[in-house]
């Protein structure tokens, strides 16, 4: 097991309240999210399970291949956890990276009673090992659904710098529930991908305000893609995870059918909207154009009042 970092004499709870989830490393997020000292890593960096592909491209490896998996406790209850490191190759899924998450989810499926927290921070599939990465995405999606069918709650926490894009967005869509912060972005095709394929008139990737109101945490919360919005602190995500573990119900065919109805209804209601602001206006928000500027506490109050959740579906 590897050691966490200590900062002076601050207590863990105080550090979790003052540490930005967005700026923290994957290891720091886990250390502060879980009960103090409870994290035990599986296939840690000292085992050097590195990517077999990066060497061929003369690129540097990372000992954990950009994902930390293991177990720990959340308010005393056991959880399985996976945290992607968004700064290593954009948190992208490679062969080993993906296999570690598949293994964790399959273990959860066998155990049945221990929930899984996935701290997404990814641009999608790692281009240098694209075939292996795409296969990993498919395996992970299957593993998430098998775990959920076996009764496991799979919660996604999204607030990293790389957001949750590409296959990561697909996996997030398979989770029981999601928590998101303002810097967390959730989508499949990223801004540059859309612009490259469809032109700048379709999507101007340099327009950051457009990117955030289309893919950002606030919009995802208002649409019901994410069930909880939190301020950007590790403690905020800890509280959000506990809340979601409390409210997520059993999964089955009824739920999947309800999810299909929810998504079809959403498309019917907002399919003609040109911009996220139009959607927020249609949702009944009076000054929809002000939503991006709202501080977290005011936004949470608004979202709890107006925003949809996927609670009865997914």
């Amino acid at each position, binding site marked *: 097991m590897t050691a966490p*970092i200590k900062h002076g004499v601050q207590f863990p709870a105080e550090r979790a309240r003052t540490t930005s989830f967005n700026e923290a490393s994957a290891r720091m997020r886990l250390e502060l999210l879980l009960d103090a000292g409870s994290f035990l890593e599986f296939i840690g960096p*000292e085992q050097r399970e590195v990517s077999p592909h990066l060497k061929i491209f003369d690129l540097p490896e990372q000992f954990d291949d950009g994902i930390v998996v293991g177990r720990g406790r959340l308010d005393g209850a056991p959880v399985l956890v996976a945290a992607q490191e968004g700064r290593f190759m954009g948190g992208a899924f490679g062969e080993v990276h993906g296999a570690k998450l598949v293994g964790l989810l399959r273990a959860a499926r066998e155990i049945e009673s221990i929930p899984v927290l996935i701290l997404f921070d990814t641009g999608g599939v790692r281009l240098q090992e694209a075939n292996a990465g795409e296969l990993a995405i498919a395996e992970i999606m299957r593993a998430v659904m098998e775990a959920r069918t076996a009764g496991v709650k799979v919660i996604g926490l999204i607030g990293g710098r790389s957001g949750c894009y590409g296959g990561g967005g697909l996996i997030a869509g398979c989770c029981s529930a999601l928590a998101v912060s303002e810097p967390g972005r959730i989508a499949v095709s990223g801004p540059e991908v859309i612009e490259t394929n469809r032109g700048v008139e379709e999507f101007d990737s340099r327009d950051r305000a457009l990117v955030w109101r289309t893919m950002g945490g606030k919009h995802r919360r208002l649409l019901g893609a994410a069930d909880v919005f939190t301020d950007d602190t590790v403690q905020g995500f800890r509280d959000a995870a506990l809340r979601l573990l409390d409210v997520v119900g059993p999964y089955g065919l009824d739920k999947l059918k309800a999810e299909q109805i929810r998504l079809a209804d959403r498309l019917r209601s907002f399919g003609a909207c040109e911009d996220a602001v139009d959607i927020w206006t249609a949702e009944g928000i009076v000054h929809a154009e002000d939503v991006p500027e709202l501080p977290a506490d005011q936004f949470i109050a608004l979202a709890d009042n107006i925003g949809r959740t996927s609670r009865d579906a997914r």
Partner: protein
Amino acid sequence: MEDLNFQHKARARAGGSRKSAIIGVVASGNLEVLAERVLPDGECRLEIKTAAVGFGDVWQAVVADFVERYSPGGLKFSINDGGARPDTVSLRLAQAVRLIEEDGQ
């Protein structure tokens, strides 16, 4: 990529009882350092894989300074480097020693 290896004699054994510690991320201008307590008390070894080719002399100077300052006896450092500057390397090495000297497993 370039592989660099350095072997030093250390004045004293690094404190603490932790077996390993890791710090940092492999990204542009950053590096990860994995410290492991696997060597005899008076020895120190560094195995570096760096994306910045041709800076062996700088690494040698940074490593010699680090061993002199921290006396990390008994430790092996495995480094994956994304082209970090010397000051960042010095900082990560110091953090790795501090981590492995802390209480705990």
